[in-house]
């Protein structure tokens, strides 16, 4: 599954960059994130509850940031697994100045496996997009609050 899109923040690039890479901010903004801790440079362990309504699964996994070119682009890989299956993904994010703020363009290849892939297929794409949207909205709020 490929997810791509853009999100615009009414904030300068450096600030958006900082927010996106701040583990504390990530811990607060990643939808369903119960726990996020750094285990190395640019590497985090996370426990995330993913799903909609009563259909939720807890995933334990790792997030790794790589090829950081502040404040322009970085890559992020994530892998998590839990009772309902696993999620793996590779995303590239790019930040660019736009009038009045910063545009983040993302492209992610996400692989979902196990029970959720089999039973939830119809909803996977939609739910993933929804969660991304939620994530960016929360980041925007964080940046706004910090301002």
């Amino acid at each position, binding site marked *: 599954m490929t997810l791509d899109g853009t999100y615009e923040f009414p904030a300068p690039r450096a600030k958006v960059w900082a927010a996106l890479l701040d583990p504390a901010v990530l811990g607060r903004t990643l939808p369903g994130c119960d726990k996020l801790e750094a285990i190395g440079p640019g590497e985090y362990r996370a426990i995330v509850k993913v*799903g*909609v*309504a*009563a*259909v*939720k*699964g807890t995933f334990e996994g790792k997030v790794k940031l790589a090829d950081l070119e502040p404040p322009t682009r970085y890559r992020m890989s994530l892998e998590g697994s839990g*009772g*309902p299956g696993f999620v793996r993904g590779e995303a590239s994010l790019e930040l660019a100045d736009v009038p009045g703020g910063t545009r983040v363009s993302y492209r992610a290849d996400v692989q979902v496996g196990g*029970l*959720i892939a089999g*039973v*939830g*297929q*119809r*909803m*996977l*794409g*939609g*739910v993933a997009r*929804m969660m991304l949207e939620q994530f960016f909205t929360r980041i925007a709020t964080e940046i706004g609050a910090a301002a």
Partner: protein
Amino acid sequence: MKPAPFEYVRPRSLAEALEVLRQHGDEAKCLAGGQSLVPLMNLRLSKPGVVVDLNALKDLAYVRAEDGSVSIGALTRQRVLETSPVIRQRAPLLAEVTPLIGHPPIRARGTFGGSLAHADPAAEYPAVVLALEGRMRAARAGSEREVPAEEFFVTYLTTALEPVEILTEVTVPVLPPHTGTAFVELTRRHGDFAIVGVAAVVTLDEAGAISRIRLALCGVGPTPLRARRAEAVLQGQRPSQALVAEAGRVAMDEADPADDLHGSAEYRREMTAVFARRTLGRALERLGVRL
């Protein structure tokens, strides 16, 4: 396929149930007919900490004719809607759609409110209630509110209900005279969730023009959808084959489906046009209009 452990509560009154929800919030899950929730629990896709069994709340199971509307208690079994003379008379679209839901043993247990609160976008009731402009009554400890169907369905399996709220009743207005309704769906087998389903509520004026039109789609988005632009195409017009076909094409663009095993997004979109047309045709036929 056995469910994970949970705490079980069977409140004897709505107030008690609401109090339990107030205490447990997101951890609690209401159990009505269980025809959607229990399969998810057996698969362990759903592992609620607390199951609040609403089945003792017998006074939430009723069908009541009101002035200009019919009120249905959320715990009313689907089977009742299939056979209730009040429903047949005052909300025939609900009677028509009910036999399409699963099979008799599913409908014997499954509830009207449960199906709506579960909000599977491919399910039939949500689209029908949307087309009928139903009003949902949501109770929480100490208060209640009304949510129009239009605002009730938020996204996949998600409604406007807060974790502390229970859907208690749905009211659907009695339709004006010269109104025809229909629901037609595409399924691979009898009783399956819809690949595409369309509900239509059409009212004709004395000149035979469409004076009121509600068109709702299921299976083609994260929620049931009102096809408002298609409605606009039809509004005020005299029905014709060309008009209905045009409405179908417009509805197709309003659909926002995803792929699954039984139909790609493209196919679902195309079928939206076909079934919008077929549903409108059937509703009009019931008004004596043959296209």
